[in-house]
C-alpha cells in the first residue's frame, strides 16, 4: 500500500471511530436521534451529545494524536524504538500539577484549576529538562535529565498522596492518575486545543532533521541540520502536546510507544513519514480504546489509562522479546 493510501485509510478510520464514539454510550440514544440532537442541540439528548459525547470524542482524537505524534518524534530523535513521549518528564510534571490541584481542593472551587495546574507542572518539567540537558547536550543527556525529572515528579506526587487530607482525596488522586476522557467538557477541549495545534505544528516540521539523524548526530550536522534547534523542537513540541494531553486526560501510557512501532512496517522506517501517520494512528487507537472502555464495562467506569496499559504492556513485552531474538 502506498504511503498516501495508508494516510487516507488512517483518516477514514479516525472519522469512523469519531462517529462511533459520538454514537456509543450508556444513555440509550439511537444513532439517528443522537445525530439530529447533536445538530439541533435540543432536549436532554442534545445536552448529552453536545456537552458529554462531543468533547469526549474530540479529546479522544486530540489526545491520541498527541501521544502518537510525540511518540514517533521521540523515537526518531533518540533513534530508539523503545522511547516514549513521557521520557522527557512532561507527563510526570503534569501529573504532579494536577495532583496538587486536587490535594489543595483548588479544583473543587474552580474546575479548570486542575488542567491549568497540570499545564504549569509540564512547563516546569520542560524548563528543568532544558536547564539540565544544557544547550549543547546530546540525546543521552536529555534522556538522563528526563529520567531524573520524572523520578522527582513521581516522588513529589507520592508525597502529596502520602499527605492526602482524607481517603476521598487520595482515591480521587489515584483515579485521576489512571487517565480517562469521561465527563470532560468543551472547556477542556478549548483549553487543550491551542497547545495541541502548536505542538503538532512544531513536531511535524522536524521530519527532515529526524531523517538525517538516522545516520547519527555527526552525519546529520554535516548535512546542514542544526542539532540544537532540532532538540529544542522535539522537547518543546512534545512538552506542549503531552502536557496538554495529560492535563485534560490524565496519564495514558503505551499509546505513544506502540503506535509508531505498529506503523513502522507498513509506512516504512523514515521518521518524517512516521510522524503524520502516528498522529492519525494514535488518534484512531485512543478513540477505539475509549469506545472499548464504554462497551466492555458500561456500568463500571473502566479507566482509559488502565485499558491502554493492559493491552499495551503485553505488546511491549512481545516487542522486547522479538528484539532479543533478532539480537
Amino acid at each position, binding site marked *: 500500500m502506498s504511503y498516501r493510501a495508508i494516510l487516507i485509510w488512517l483518516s477514514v478510520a479516525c472519522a469512523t471511530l469519531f462517529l462511533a464514539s459520538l454514537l456509543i454510550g450508556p444513555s440509550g440514544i439511537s444513532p439517528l436521534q443522537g445525530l439530529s440532537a447533536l445538530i439541533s442541540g435540543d432536549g436532554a439528548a442534545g445536552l448529552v451529545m453536545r456537552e458529554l459525547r462531543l468533547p469526549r470524542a474530540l479529546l479522544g482524537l486530540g489526545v491520541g494524536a498527541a501521544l502518537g505524534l510525540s511518540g514517533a518524534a521521540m523515537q526518531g530523535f533518540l533513534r530508539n524504538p523503545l522511547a516514549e513521549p513521557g521520557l522527557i518528564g512532561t507527563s510526570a510534571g503534569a501529573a504532579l500539577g494536577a495532583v496538587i490541584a486536587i490535594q489543595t481542593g483548588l479544583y473543587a472551587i474552580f474546575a479548570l484549576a486542575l488542567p491549568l495546574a497540570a499545564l504549569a507542572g509540564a512547563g516546569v518539567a520542560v524548563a528543568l529538562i532544558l536547564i539540565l540537558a544544557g544547550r549543547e547536550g546530546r540525546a543521552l543527556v536529555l534522556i538522563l535529565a528526563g529520567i531524573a525529572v520524572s523520578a522527582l515528579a513521581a516522588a513529589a506526587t507520592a508525597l502529596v498522596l502520602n499527605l492526602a487530607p482524607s481517603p476521598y482525596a487520595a482515591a480521587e488522586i489515584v483515579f485521576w492518575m489512571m487517565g480517562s476522557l469521561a465527563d470532560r467538557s468543551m472547556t477542556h477541549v478549548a483549553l487543550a486545543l491551542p497547545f495541541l495545534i502548536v505542538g503538532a505544528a512544531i513536531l511535524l516540521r522536524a521530519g527532515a532533521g529526524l531523517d538525517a539523524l538516522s*545516520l*547519527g548526530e555527526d552525519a546529520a550536522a*554535516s548535512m*546542514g541540520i542544526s542539532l540544537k534547534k532540532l532538540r529544542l523542537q522535539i522537547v518543546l513540541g512534545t512538552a506542549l502536546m503531552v502536557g496538554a494531553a495529560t492535563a485534560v486526560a490524565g496519564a495514558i501510557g503505551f499509546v505513544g510507544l506502540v503506535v509508531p512501532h505498529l506503523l*513502522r512496517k507498513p509506512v*516504512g522506517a523514515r521518521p518524517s513519514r512516521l510522524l503524520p501517520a502516528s498522529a492519525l494512528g494514535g488518534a484512531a487507537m485512543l478513540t477505539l480504546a475509549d469506545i472499548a472502555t464504554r462497551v466492555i464495562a458500561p456500568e463500571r467506569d473502566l479507566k482509559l489509562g488502565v485499558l491502554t496499559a493492559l493491552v499495551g504492556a503485553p505488546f511491549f513485552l512481545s516487542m522486547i522479546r522479538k528484539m532479543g531474538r533478532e539480537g
Partner: protein
Amino acid sequence: MLELDNLSVLRGQCPVVDSVSAQVDAGELIGLIGPNGAGKTSLMRGALGLIAARGRSSLAGLDPMARARAAAWLPQAREIAWGLSVAELVALGRLPHGRDTQGAGAAAVEEALRRMGLETYRDRTATHLSGGEQAQVLIARALAQESPLILADEPIAGLDPAAQIATMEVFEAHARAGGAVVTSLHDLGLAARHCTRLWVMDRGRLVADGKPQEVLTEQLLAEVFHIRAHFRITPEGPVFQPLSTLGI
C-alpha cells in the same frame, strides 16, 4: 575548495590538532595518514566546523546548509538507525538541496548508486546488509550530496580488497571531475597508489604534505609510523609494502 589557516582543536587543555595550515584544490585526492590518535578525525571535524576549533577554516564559517552543499562528511561510525531502504538512505544526501526527490535529485541518487555499483541493492533494507555493504551505501549517500568536496573518515576500513580499490577509484573519478576528496586511511599502499597528495599527521601536527613518493621516505616512516617498508615505483604504479616495526 578548502583552506585551513592555523587550525587547532583542543580537548581540555591538550591540542589534538595543533596549528594546521593547508589547502585543498580542485582535482586533488588527498590521503590523510598518521598513526592512531594523531588527530586525523579531529582535523576533518574541525575543518567542517562540527567541533569547536581555533584558527580559520574556509568551511566552518558557512551557514550549515551552504556548507553541506560545499562539503560532504562521511563519519567513521557507520550508523544506520532504522531499516531504511538503500534508495531512501542514499536520498538523504539530498537534504541540503531541499528534498528535491524528483528530477535532478532522483538523477543524483541514481548516479550515486551506479557509481558505487549498488543499482541492484536499491530496494534492500540497509540494516540487513553486511558491514562492508553498509559502508558502501553510506559512501553513495555522500556522493548523492553532490558537493564538490568530500571529507571521509576511514571509508575503506573493513572493505574487501576489490571494494577498497573500487572506492578509491570512485574518489579519483570525483577529483578528476573537478571535485576534491580528503580521506583518512591506514592502508599506505592504497594511499600511495591512488592519492595525488598525502597529508601526514603526528601528535596533532601536520608533519608532511606532498606527493606520495616525496612523503613516504624511510626517515618519515621510521619517525611517524615506526615501521620499515618497501616503496618502489613499478611500471604498474607505486607499490608500498610495510615490512616490520622498528620498536618504540
